[in-house]
Protein backbone atom coordinates (compact mmCIF):
# COMPACT_ATOMS: atom_id res chain seq x y z
CA UNK A 1 0.00 0.00 0.00
CA UNK A 2 1.09 3.51 -0.79
CA UNK A 3 1.08 5.93 2.10
CA UNK A 4 -1.18 8.69 0.79
CA UNK A 5 0.08 11.65 2.79
CA UNK A 6 -1.84 14.11 0.66
CA UNK A 7 -5.11 12.46 1.50
CA UNK A 8 -4.19 12.55 5.17
CA UNK A 9 -3.20 16.21 4.92
CA UNK A 10 -6.57 17.00 3.39
CA UNK A 11 -8.20 16.00 6.69
CA UNK A 12 -6.25 18.68 8.55
CA UNK A 13 -7.33 22.10 7.26
CA UNK A 14 -5.11 23.88 9.77
CA UNK A 15 -2.06 22.72 7.82
CA UNK A 16 -3.00 25.20 5.11
CA UNK A 17 -2.63 28.14 7.47
CA UNK A 18 0.07 30.73 7.08
CA UNK A 19 2.02 32.11 10.01
CA UNK A 20 3.94 35.36 9.69
CA UNK A 21 3.05 35.16 6.02
CA UNK A 22 4.79 31.80 5.60
CA UNK A 23 3.10 28.44 5.12
CA UNK A 24 2.95 26.55 8.40
CA UNK A 25 5.22 23.57 8.98
CA UNK A 26 4.04 21.92 12.16
CA UNK A 27 6.83 19.93 13.77
CA UNK A 28 5.60 20.14 17.38
CA UNK A 29 3.54 16.98 17.30
CA UNK A 30 4.99 15.52 20.45
CA UNK A 31 3.50 18.43 22.39
CA UNK A 32 0.09 18.10 20.79
CA UNK A 33 -1.11 17.08 17.36
CA UNK A 34 -3.50 18.90 15.11
CA UNK A 35 -7.00 17.47 14.77
CA UNK A 36 -8.70 16.14 11.66
CA UNK A 37 -12.12 17.22 10.37
CA UNK A 38 -13.49 13.81 11.29
CA UNK A 39 -13.06 14.66 14.95
CA UNK A 40 -14.61 18.08 14.49
CA UNK A 41 -17.57 16.65 12.60
CA UNK A 42 -18.26 14.13 15.34
CA UNK A 43 -18.07 16.93 17.89
CA UNK A 44 -20.44 18.95 15.76
CA UNK A 45 -23.00 16.16 15.71
CA UNK A 46 -23.06 16.23 19.50
CA UNK A 47 -23.78 19.93 19.35
CA UNK A 48 -26.50 19.76 16.75
CA UNK A 49 -28.04 16.29 16.65
CA UNK A 50 -27.91 14.51 19.97
CA UNK A 51 -26.44 15.14 23.37
CA UNK A 52 -27.30 14.29 26.94
CA UNK A 53 -25.60 13.28 30.13
CA UNK A 54 -24.73 9.62 30.10
CA UNK A 55 -25.43 6.39 31.96
CA UNK A 56 -28.15 7.21 34.41
CA UNK A 57 -30.76 8.85 32.28
CA UNK A 58 -33.88 7.30 30.79
CA UNK A 59 -34.37 9.46 27.74
CA UNK A 60 -33.50 9.23 24.07
CA UNK A 61 -30.77 11.88 23.93
CA UNK A 62 -28.99 10.41 26.91
CA UNK A 63 -29.35 6.86 25.60
CA UNK A 64 -27.84 7.75 22.26
CA UNK A 65 -25.01 9.61 23.91
CA UNK A 66 -24.34 6.74 26.29
CA UNK A 67 -24.16 4.27 23.42
CA UNK A 68 -21.73 6.50 21.53
CA UNK A 69 -19.58 6.98 24.63
CA UNK A 70 -19.42 3.33 25.59
CA UNK A 71 -18.71 2.22 22.05
CA UNK A 72 -15.50 4.25 22.16
CA UNK A 73 -14.49 2.21 25.18
CA UNK A 74 -14.79 -0.87 22.98
CA UNK A 75 -12.84 0.86 20.25
CA UNK A 76 -9.99 1.76 22.61
CA UNK A 77 -9.96 -1.77 23.99
CA UNK A 78 -9.58 -3.12 20.51
CA UNK A 79 -7.03 -0.48 19.47
CA UNK A 80 -4.57 -1.37 22.23
CA UNK A 81 -5.51 -5.04 22.44
CA UNK A 82 -6.82 -4.99 25.99
CA UNK A 83 -8.48 -8.08 27.36
CA UNK A 84 -11.78 -6.47 28.33
CA UNK A 85 -13.63 -3.20 28.09
CA UNK A 86 -13.79 -2.83 31.86
CA UNK A 87 -10.03 -2.43 31.87
CA UNK A 88 -10.30 0.84 29.94
CA UNK A 89 -10.69 3.90 32.14
CA UNK A 90 -11.21 7.37 30.75
CA UNK A 91 -9.21 10.10 32.46
CA UNK A 92 -8.33 13.65 31.46
CA UNK A 93 -4.87 12.73 30.21
CA UNK A 94 -1.70 10.73 30.71
CA UNK A 95 -0.80 12.90 33.68
CA UNK A 96 -4.03 12.10 35.45
CA UNK A 97 -3.70 8.42 34.57
CA UNK A 98 -0.30 8.35 36.29
CA UNK A 99 -1.61 10.25 39.30
CA UNK A 100 -4.56 7.89 39.59
CA UNK A 101 -2.33 4.84 39.71
CA UNK A 102 0.23 6.51 41.98
CA UNK A 103 -2.46 7.45 44.50
CA UNK A 104 -4.70 4.43 44.30
CA UNK A 105 -2.16 1.64 43.72
CA UNK A 106 0.01 3.49 46.22
CA UNK A 107 -2.67 3.47 48.89
CA UNK A 108 -3.04 -0.28 48.56
CA UNK A 109 0.51 -1.47 47.91
CA UNK A 110 3.09 1.17 48.82
CA UNK A 111 4.23 1.57 52.40
CA UNK A 112 7.23 2.93 54.30
CA UNK A 113 10.36 1.36 52.88
CA UNK A 114 8.81 0.47 49.53
CA UNK A 115 10.75 1.29 46.39
CA UNK A 116 9.45 2.58 43.08
CA UNK A 117 11.74 2.39 40.08
CA UNK A 118 11.47 5.31 37.67
CA UNK A 119 13.58 5.68 34.54
CA UNK A 120 15.85 8.65 34.00
CA UNK A 121 14.20 9.65 30.75
CA UNK A 122 10.69 10.18 32.10
CA UNK A 123 8.46 13.12 31.38
CA UNK A 124 7.61 14.97 34.60
CA UNK A 125 4.16 13.44 34.37
CA UNK A 126 5.56 9.97 34.94
CA UNK A 127 7.97 11.15 37.60
CA UNK A 128 6.40 13.73 39.90
CA UNK A 129 3.30 11.62 40.72
CA UNK A 130 5.58 8.86 42.00
CA UNK A 131 7.76 11.35 43.87
CA UNK A 132 4.79 12.96 45.58
CA UNK A 133 3.43 9.59 46.47
CA UNK A 134 6.71 8.22 47.73
CA UNK A 135 7.06 11.29 49.92
CA UNK A 136 3.61 10.77 51.40
CA UNK A 137 4.13 7.10 52.11
CA UNK A 138 7.76 7.05 53.14
CA UNK A 139 8.78 5.16 50.02
CA UNK A 140 11.87 5.67 47.92
CA UNK A 141 12.34 6.48 44.22
CA UNK A 142 15.05 4.39 42.56
CA UNK A 143 16.50 5.58 39.28
CA UNK A 144 16.76 3.31 36.25
CA UNK A 145 19.68 5.06 34.55
CA UNK A 146 20.24 5.94 30.94
CA UNK A 147 23.25 5.70 28.67
CA UNK A 148 24.80 8.43 26.61
CA UNK A 149 23.08 7.26 23.42
CA UNK A 150 19.66 7.60 25.01
CA UNK A 151 18.96 3.96 25.85
CA UNK A 152 18.01 2.70 29.27
CA UNK A 153 20.53 0.51 31.07
CA UNK A 154 18.15 -2.39 31.28
CA UNK A 155 20.93 -4.77 32.26
CA UNK A 156 20.89 -3.09 35.67
CA UNK A 157 17.28 -4.12 36.26
CA UNK A 158 18.08 -7.42 37.89
CA UNK A 159 20.06 -5.50 40.50
CA UNK A 160 17.67 -2.58 40.91
CA UNK A 161 14.57 -4.71 41.41
CA UNK A 162 14.59 -5.91 44.99
CA UNK A 163 12.09 -7.43 47.35
CA UNK A 164 11.17 -3.87 48.30
CA UNK A 165 10.27 -2.83 44.76
CA UNK A 166 6.53 -2.30 44.38
CA UNK A 167 6.30 -0.83 40.89
CA UNK A 168 8.36 0.17 37.87
CA UNK A 169 7.38 3.28 35.89
CA UNK A 170 8.77 3.69 32.42
CA UNK A 171 7.91 5.39 29.17
CA UNK A 172 7.30 3.42 26.02
CA UNK A 173 8.79 6.16 23.82
CA UNK A 174 10.82 9.12 25.07
CA UNK A 175 9.31 12.51 24.25
CA UNK A 176 12.79 14.08 24.05
CA UNK A 177 15.05 11.44 22.59
CA UNK A 178 12.60 9.39 20.57
CA UNK A 179 13.96 6.21 22.10
CA UNK A 180 11.59 3.25 21.81
CA UNK A 181 12.31 1.32 24.96
CA UNK A 182 12.50 -2.50 24.88
CA UNK A 183 9.27 -2.78 26.85
CA UNK A 184 8.74 -6.51 26.56
CA UNK A 185 12.17 -7.13 27.99
CA UNK A 186 11.74 -4.58 30.81
CA UNK A 187 8.32 -5.95 31.73
CA UNK A 188 9.63 -9.47 31.67
CA UNK A 189 12.46 -8.57 34.06
CA UNK A 190 9.99 -6.90 36.40
CA UNK A 191 7.43 -9.69 36.28
CA UNK A 192 10.05 -12.26 37.09
CA UNK A 193 10.22 -10.56 40.46
CA UNK A 194 6.46 -9.99 40.59
CA UNK A 195 6.78 -6.25 40.11
CA UNK A 196 4.02 -4.61 38.05
CA UNK A 197 4.93 -2.06 35.38
CA UNK A 198 3.26 1.28 34.64
CA UNK A 199 3.89 2.33 31.05
CA UNK A 200 3.63 5.92 29.83
CA UNK A 201 2.40 5.43 26.29
CA UNK A 202 1.80 9.13 25.55
CA UNK A 203 4.37 9.10 22.73
CA UNK A 204 3.74 5.58 21.52
CA UNK A 205 0.14 4.81 20.54
CA UNK A 206 0.07 7.40 17.74
CA UNK A 207 3.36 6.22 16.23
CA UNK A 208 3.78 2.46 16.55
CA UNK A 209 1.50 -0.56 16.91
CA UNK A 210 0.78 -1.22 20.59
CA UNK A 211 -0.72 -4.33 22.10
CA UNK A 212 -0.90 -4.18 25.88
CA UNK A 213 -1.66 -7.85 26.20
CA UNK A 214 1.29 -8.92 24.08
CA UNK A 215 3.48 -6.55 26.09
CA UNK A 216 1.89 -7.84 29.28
CA UNK A 217 1.86 -4.27 30.66
CA UNK A 218 0.08 -3.88 33.99
CA UNK A 219 -0.88 -0.27 33.33
CA UNK A 220 -0.68 1.71 30.11
CA UNK A 221 -1.55 5.41 29.81
CA UNK A 222 -1.94 7.87 26.95
CA UNK A 223 -3.55 11.17 25.90
CA UNK A 224 -6.06 11.76 23.10
CA UNK A 225 -4.67 15.20 22.21
CA UNK A 226 -1.39 13.66 21.09
CA UNK A 227 -3.10 11.17 18.78
CA UNK A 228 -5.13 13.56 16.64
CA UNK A 229 -8.00 13.43 19.09
CA UNK A 230 -9.70 15.98 21.33
CA UNK A 231 -8.27 17.67 24.40
CA UNK A 232 -9.06 16.73 27.96
CA UNK A 233 -9.27 12.99 27.34
CA UNK A 234 -6.84 10.35 28.48
CA UNK A 235 -6.90 6.61 28.79
CA UNK A 236 -5.70 4.38 31.55
CA UNK A 237 -5.52 0.71 30.78
CA UNK A 238 -5.08 -1.45 33.85
CA UNK A 239 -5.17 -5.17 34.36
CA UNK A 240 -8.40 -6.19 36.01
CA UNK A 241 -6.60 -7.88 38.88
CA UNK A 242 -4.99 -4.59 39.88
CA UNK A 243 -7.94 -2.33 39.22
CA UNK A 244 -10.21 -4.49 41.32
CA UNK A 245 -7.86 -4.37 44.27
CA UNK A 246 -7.30 -0.63 44.09
CA UNK A 247 -9.45 1.80 46.07
CA UNK A 248 -11.24 4.57 44.14
CA UNK A 249 -9.24 7.68 43.35
CA UNK A 250 -11.77 10.49 43.23
CA UNK A 251 -15.21 10.43 44.82
CA UNK A 252 -18.45 11.71 43.33
CA UNK A 253 -21.23 10.93 40.93
CA UNK A 254 -21.03 7.83 38.68
CA UNK A 255 -18.53 5.94 40.83
CA UNK A 256 -20.75 5.02 43.70
CA UNK A 257 -23.24 2.31 44.22
CA UNK A 258 -24.85 3.61 47.38
CA UNK A 259 -24.20 6.56 49.63
CA UNK A 260 -25.28 7.27 53.16
CA UNK A 261 -23.77 9.65 55.66
CA UNK A 262 -22.24 6.65 57.32
CA UNK A 263 -20.98 4.55 54.49
CA UNK A 264 -20.51 4.50 50.75
CA UNK A 265 -20.19 1.52 48.45
CA UNK A 266 -18.57 1.80 45.07
CA UNK A 267 -19.39 0.73 41.54
CA UNK A 268 -17.52 -1.92 39.62
CA UNK A 269 -14.64 -1.08 37.29
CA UNK A 270 -14.35 0.96 35.14
CA UNK A 271 -16.92 3.25 36.75
CA UNK A 272 -15.27 3.05 40.16
CA UNK A 273 -12.50 5.19 38.66
CA UNK A 274 -14.65 7.58 36.66
CA UNK A 275 -16.04 9.99 39.24
CA UNK A 276 -18.13 12.87 37.99
CA UNK A 277 -19.46 13.59 34.54
CA UNK A 278 -16.72 12.49 32.14
CA UNK A 279 -15.59 14.43 29.09
CA UNK A 280 -18.51 13.02 27.11
CA UNK A 281 -18.02 14.85 23.82
CA UNK A 282 -14.26 14.41 24.08
CA UNK A 283 -14.41 10.66 24.54
CA UNK A 284 -16.92 10.28 21.72
CA UNK A 285 -14.76 12.40 19.39
CA UNK A 286 -11.76 10.22 20.18
CA UNK A 287 -13.56 7.55 18.16
CA UNK A 288 -12.87 9.01 14.70
CA UNK A 289 -9.26 9.81 15.66
CA UNK A 290 -8.64 6.15 16.44
CA UNK A 291 -10.48 5.16 13.30
CA UNK A 292 -8.17 7.37 11.25
CA UNK A 293 -5.10 5.74 12.80
CA UNK A 294 -6.50 2.29 12.19
CA UNK A 295 -7.54 2.97 8.62
CA UNK A 296 -4.11 4.38 7.87
CA UNK A 297 -2.57 1.43 9.65
CA UNK A 298 -0.14 1.71 12.54
CA UNK A 299 2.50 -0.26 10.62
CA UNK A 300 2.29 2.16 7.72
CA UNK A 301 2.41 5.16 10.02
CA UNK A 302 5.47 3.80 11.79
CA UNK A 303 7.21 3.19 8.47
CA UNK A 304 6.34 6.62 7.10
CA UNK A 305 7.48 8.46 10.19
CA UNK A 306 10.64 6.43 10.34
CA UNK A 307 11.44 7.51 6.84
CA UNK A 308 10.96 11.14 7.90
CA UNK A 309 13.22 10.54 10.87
CA UNK A 310 16.02 9.09 8.75
CA UNK A 311 15.68 11.75 6.10
CA UNK A 312 15.83 14.58 8.63
CA UNK A 313 18.57 13.07 10.80
CA UNK A 314 20.76 12.58 7.79
CA UNK A 315 20.50 16.23 6.75
CA UNK A 316 20.90 17.61 10.27
CA UNK A 317 24.12 15.70 10.70
CA UNK A 318 25.63 17.63 7.82
CA UNK A 319 25.33 20.87 9.77
CA UNK A 320 28.38 22.17 11.57
CA UNK A 321 28.32 22.12 15.35
CA UNK A 322 25.00 20.29 15.51
CA UNK A 323 24.59 17.73 18.30
CA UNK A 324 21.72 15.26 18.32
CA UNK A 325 20.61 13.93 21.70
CA UNK A 326 19.37 10.37 21.56
CA UNK A 327 20.71 7.90 19.07
CA UNK A 328 19.07 4.75 20.24
CA UNK A 329 18.89 1.89 17.78
CA UNK A 330 15.09 1.94 18.04
CA UNK A 331 13.80 5.47 17.56
CA UNK A 332 10.50 7.11 16.73
CA UNK A 333 10.10 10.41 14.85
CA UNK A 334 11.53 12.78 17.43
CA UNK A 335 14.85 14.63 17.12
CA UNK A 336 16.34 16.78 19.86
CA UNK A 337 19.39 18.85 19.01
CA UNK A 338 21.48 21.87 19.79
CA UNK A 339 23.88 23.91 17.72
CA UNK A 340 27.15 24.99 19.21
CA UNK A 341 27.08 28.51 20.57
CA UNK A 342 23.40 29.12 19.90
CA UNK A 343 20.73 29.10 22.58
CA UNK A 344 17.82 26.78 21.69
CA UNK A 345 15.33 29.52 22.53
CA UNK A 346 16.85 31.72 19.83
CA UNK A 347 16.72 28.94 17.28
CA UNK A 348 13.10 28.16 18.04
CA UNK A 349 12.03 31.79 17.99
CA UNK A 350 13.68 32.40 14.64
CA UNK A 351 12.41 29.19 13.07
CA UNK A 352 8.93 30.27 14.11
CA UNK A 353 9.33 33.45 12.08
CA UNK A 354 9.96 31.29 9.02
CA UNK A 355 6.70 29.42 9.63
CA UNK A 356 8.23 26.38 11.26
CA UNK A 357 6.83 25.31 14.62
CA UNK A 358 9.33 23.40 16.73
CA UNK A 359 9.62 23.17 20.47
CA UNK A 360 12.47 24.41 22.59
CA UNK A 361 13.19 24.06 26.27
CA UNK A 362 13.44 21.24 28.74
CA UNK A 363 10.39 19.38 27.37
CA UNK A 364 9.23 18.66 30.91
CA UNK A 365 12.16 16.33 31.42
CA UNK A 366 14.52 18.11 33.79
CA UNK A 367 16.36 14.98 34.94
CA UNK A 368 17.17 14.20 31.33
CA UNK A 369 18.47 17.73 30.77
CA UNK A 370 20.64 17.37 33.86
CA UNK A 371 21.98 14.13 32.44
CA UNK A 372 23.23 15.91 29.32
CA UNK A 373 24.01 19.04 31.32
CA UNK A 374 22.13 21.36 28.97
CA UNK A 375 19.41 23.97 29.58
CA UNK A 376 17.27 22.60 26.80
CA UNK A 377 17.13 21.47 23.22
CA UNK A 378 15.36 22.22 19.99
CA UNK A 379 12.97 19.39 19.27
CA UNK A 380 11.31 18.48 16.01
CA UNK A 381 8.66 15.79 16.18
CA UNK A 382 6.73 14.32 13.29
CA UNK A 383 3.16 13.30 12.76
CA UNK A 384 1.18 11.38 10.17
CA UNK A 385 0.76 14.46 7.97
CA UNK A 386 4.40 15.57 7.72
CA UNK A 387 6.42 15.27 4.50
CA UNK A 388 10.01 15.26 3.29
CA UNK A 389 9.30 18.56 1.52
CA UNK A 390 8.56 20.08 4.89
CA UNK A 391 11.86 18.75 6.15
CA UNK A 392 13.61 20.36 3.23
CA UNK A 393 12.02 23.68 4.10
CA UNK A 394 12.98 23.22 7.73
CA UNK A 395 16.63 22.48 6.93
CA UNK A 396 16.82 25.46 4.62
CA UNK A 397 15.27 27.73 7.25
CA UNK A 398 17.56 26.33 9.90
CA UNK A 399 20.63 27.15 7.84
CA UNK A 400 19.34 30.64 7.32
CA UNK A 401 18.64 31.39 10.99
CA UNK A 402 21.89 29.81 12.13
CA UNK A 403 23.70 32.25 9.88
CA UNK A 404 21.79 35.11 11.50
CA UNK A 405 22.50 33.90 15.01
CA UNK A 406 26.16 33.05 14.70
Amino acid at each position, binding site marked *: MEYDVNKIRSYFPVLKQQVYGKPLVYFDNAASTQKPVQVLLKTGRLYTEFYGN*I*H*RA*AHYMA*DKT*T*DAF*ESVRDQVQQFIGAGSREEIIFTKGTTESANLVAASFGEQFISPGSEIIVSEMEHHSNMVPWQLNALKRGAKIVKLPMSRNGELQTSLLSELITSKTRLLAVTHVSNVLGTINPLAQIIDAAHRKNVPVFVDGAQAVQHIPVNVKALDADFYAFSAHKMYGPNGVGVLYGKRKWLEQMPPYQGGGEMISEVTFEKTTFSEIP*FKFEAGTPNITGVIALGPAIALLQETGMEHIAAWEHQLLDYCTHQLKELEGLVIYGEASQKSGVISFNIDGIHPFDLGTMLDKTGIAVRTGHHCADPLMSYFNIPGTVRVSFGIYNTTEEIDRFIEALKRVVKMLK
Partner: protein
Amino acid sequence: MKTIEEVQQDILEEFSLYEDWMDKYAYLIELGNSVEPISAVEKNDQNLIKGCQSRVWLVAEKKEGHIYFRGESDAVIVKGLVALLLRVFSGRTPGEILHSQVHFIDDLGLTQHLSPTRSNGLLAMMKQIRLYAVAYDRLDN
Protein backbone atom coordinates in the same frame (compact mmCIF):
# COMPACT_ATOMS: atom_id res chain seq x y z
CA MET B 1 -44.26 -26.44 23.56
CA LYS B 2 -42.71 -23.85 21.28
CA THR B 3 -38.96 -23.40 21.20
CA ILE B 4 -37.27 -20.37 22.68
CA GLU B 5 -36.71 -19.09 19.17
CA GLU B 6 -40.35 -19.56 18.24
CA VAL B 7 -41.51 -17.66 21.29
CA GLN B 8 -39.19 -14.81 20.43
CA GLN B 9 -40.66 -14.73 16.91
CA ASP B 10 -44.16 -14.65 18.39
CA ILE B 11 -43.26 -11.69 20.54
CA LEU B 12 -41.76 -9.83 17.62
CA GLU B 13 -44.90 -10.45 15.61
CA GLU B 14 -47.17 -9.19 18.37
CA PHE B 15 -45.20 -6.00 18.73
CA SER B 16 -45.08 -5.46 14.99
CA LEU B 17 -48.77 -4.61 15.23
CA TYR B 18 -47.81 -1.35 16.90
CA GLU B 19 -46.06 1.27 14.87
CA ASP B 20 -45.99 4.00 17.41
CA TRP B 21 -43.67 3.80 20.39
CA MET B 22 -46.46 4.87 22.68
CA ASP B 23 -48.47 1.85 21.59
CA LYS B 24 -45.56 -0.54 22.02
CA TYR B 25 -45.08 0.73 25.52
CA ALA B 26 -48.80 0.61 26.21
CA TYR B 27 -48.63 -3.08 25.35
CA LEU B 28 -45.58 -3.52 27.62
CA ILE B 29 -47.50 -1.87 30.44
CA GLU B 30 -50.43 -4.18 29.81
CA LEU B 31 -48.09 -7.14 30.01
CA GLY B 32 -46.55 -5.70 33.15
CA ASN B 33 -49.90 -5.35 34.82
CA SER B 34 -50.81 -8.92 33.98
CA VAL B 35 -47.76 -10.41 35.71
CA GLU B 36 -48.78 -12.49 38.65
CA PRO B 37 -47.37 -10.80 41.75
CA ILE B 38 -44.93 -12.79 43.82
CA SER B 39 -45.63 -13.03 47.51
CA ALA B 40 -44.30 -10.56 50.05
CA VAL B 41 -42.23 -13.33 51.62
CA GLU B 42 -40.55 -14.04 48.31
CA LYS B 43 -39.70 -10.39 47.88
CA ASN B 44 -36.65 -10.96 50.02
CA ASP B 45 -33.04 -9.91 49.61
CA GLN B 46 -32.10 -13.29 48.22
CA ASN B 47 -34.43 -12.99 45.26
CA LEU B 48 -33.72 -9.30 44.75
CA ILE B 49 -31.80 -8.10 41.73
CA LYS B 50 -30.81 -4.54 42.30
CA GLY B 51 -30.89 -2.03 39.50
CA CYS B 52 -30.07 1.60 39.57
CA GLN B 53 -33.61 2.84 39.23
CA SER B 54 -35.89 -0.12 39.73
CA ARG B 55 -35.81 -3.42 41.55
CA VAL B 56 -36.48 -6.85 40.14
CA TRP B 57 -37.26 -10.05 42.04
CA LEU B 58 -36.74 -13.43 40.47
CA VAL B 59 -37.86 -16.78 41.89
CA ALA B 60 -36.85 -20.09 40.32
CA GLU B 61 -38.20 -23.59 40.93
CA LYS B 62 -37.30 -26.84 39.28
CA LYS B 63 -39.85 -29.48 38.45
CA GLU B 64 -39.10 -32.60 36.44
CA GLY B 65 -36.08 -31.23 34.66
CA HIS B 66 -37.65 -27.88 33.84
CA ILE B 67 -37.03 -24.53 35.49
CA TYR B 68 -40.02 -22.38 36.27
CA PHE B 69 -39.41 -18.70 36.82
CA ARG B 70 -41.59 -16.09 38.40
CA GLY B 71 -40.62 -12.45 38.67
CA GLU B 72 -41.72 -8.96 39.43
CA SER B 73 -40.52 -5.39 39.52
CA ASP B 74 -41.57 -2.18 41.22
CA ALA B 75 -41.67 -0.41 37.85
CA VAL B 76 -44.43 -1.56 35.55
CA ILE B 77 -42.45 -1.20 32.33
CA VAL B 78 -39.69 -3.31 33.76
CA LYS B 79 -42.41 -5.74 34.87
CA GLY B 80 -43.56 -5.90 31.25
CA LEU B 81 -40.06 -6.77 30.15
CA VAL B 82 -39.86 -9.33 32.94
CA ALA B 83 -43.09 -10.85 31.65
CA LEU B 84 -41.54 -11.27 28.23
CA LEU B 85 -38.44 -12.89 29.64
CA LEU B 86 -40.53 -15.26 31.73
CA ARG B 87 -42.55 -16.19 28.68
CA VAL B 88 -39.34 -17.02 26.83
CA PHE B 89 -37.52 -18.83 29.60
CA SER B 90 -39.95 -20.29 32.12
CA GLY B 91 -40.58 -24.00 31.80
CA ARG B 92 -37.38 -24.71 29.88
CA THR B 93 -34.67 -27.23 30.58
CA PRO B 94 -31.28 -25.88 31.68
CA GLY B 95 -29.87 -27.03 28.35
CA GLU B 96 -32.41 -25.08 26.35
CA ILE B 97 -31.63 -21.92 28.31
CA LEU B 98 -27.89 -22.34 28.04
CA HIS B 99 -28.03 -22.85 24.30
CA SER B 100 -30.41 -20.01 23.61
CA GLN B 101 -29.70 -16.67 22.06
CA VAL B 102 -31.84 -13.79 23.21
CA HIS B 103 -32.30 -11.28 20.44
CA PHE B 104 -35.89 -10.11 20.72
CA ILE B 105 -35.13 -7.22 23.05
CA ASP B 106 -32.63 -5.83 20.59
CA ASP B 107 -34.98 -6.49 17.71
CA LEU B 108 -37.78 -4.63 19.45
CA GLY B 109 -35.49 -1.61 19.84
CA LEU B 110 -35.55 -1.92 23.61
CA THR B 111 -31.80 -2.39 23.88
CA GLN B 112 -31.40 0.58 26.17
CA HIS B 113 -33.14 -1.40 28.90
CA LEU B 114 -30.36 -3.96 28.71
CA SER B 115 -27.42 -1.55 28.62
CA PRO B 116 -24.94 -2.42 31.35
CA THR B 117 -24.55 1.21 32.22
CA ARG B 118 -28.29 1.70 32.70
CA SER B 119 -28.26 -1.17 35.14
CA ASN B 120 -31.99 -1.20 35.70
CA GLY B 121 -31.92 -4.80 36.73
CA LEU B 122 -32.92 -6.48 33.49
CA LEU B 123 -29.44 -7.40 32.39
CA ALA B 124 -28.72 -8.75 35.85
CA MET B 125 -31.95 -10.73 35.63
CA MET B 126 -30.87 -12.35 32.36
CA LYS B 127 -27.57 -13.26 33.93
CA GLN B 128 -29.38 -14.69 36.92
CA ILE B 129 -31.57 -16.85 34.70
CA ARG B 130 -28.46 -18.31 33.09
CA LEU B 131 -26.84 -18.84 36.47
CA TYR B 132 -29.88 -20.85 37.61
CA ALA B 133 -29.63 -22.91 34.45
CA VAL B 134 -25.95 -23.58 35.06
CA ALA B 135 -26.55 -24.50 38.67
CA TYR B 136 -29.45 -26.86 37.95
CA ASP B 137 -27.51 -28.33 35.07
CA ARG B 138 -24.64 -29.19 37.42
CA LEU B 139 -27.01 -30.68 39.97
CA ASP B 140 -28.36 -32.96 37.27
CA ASN B 141 -24.97 -34.22 36.20
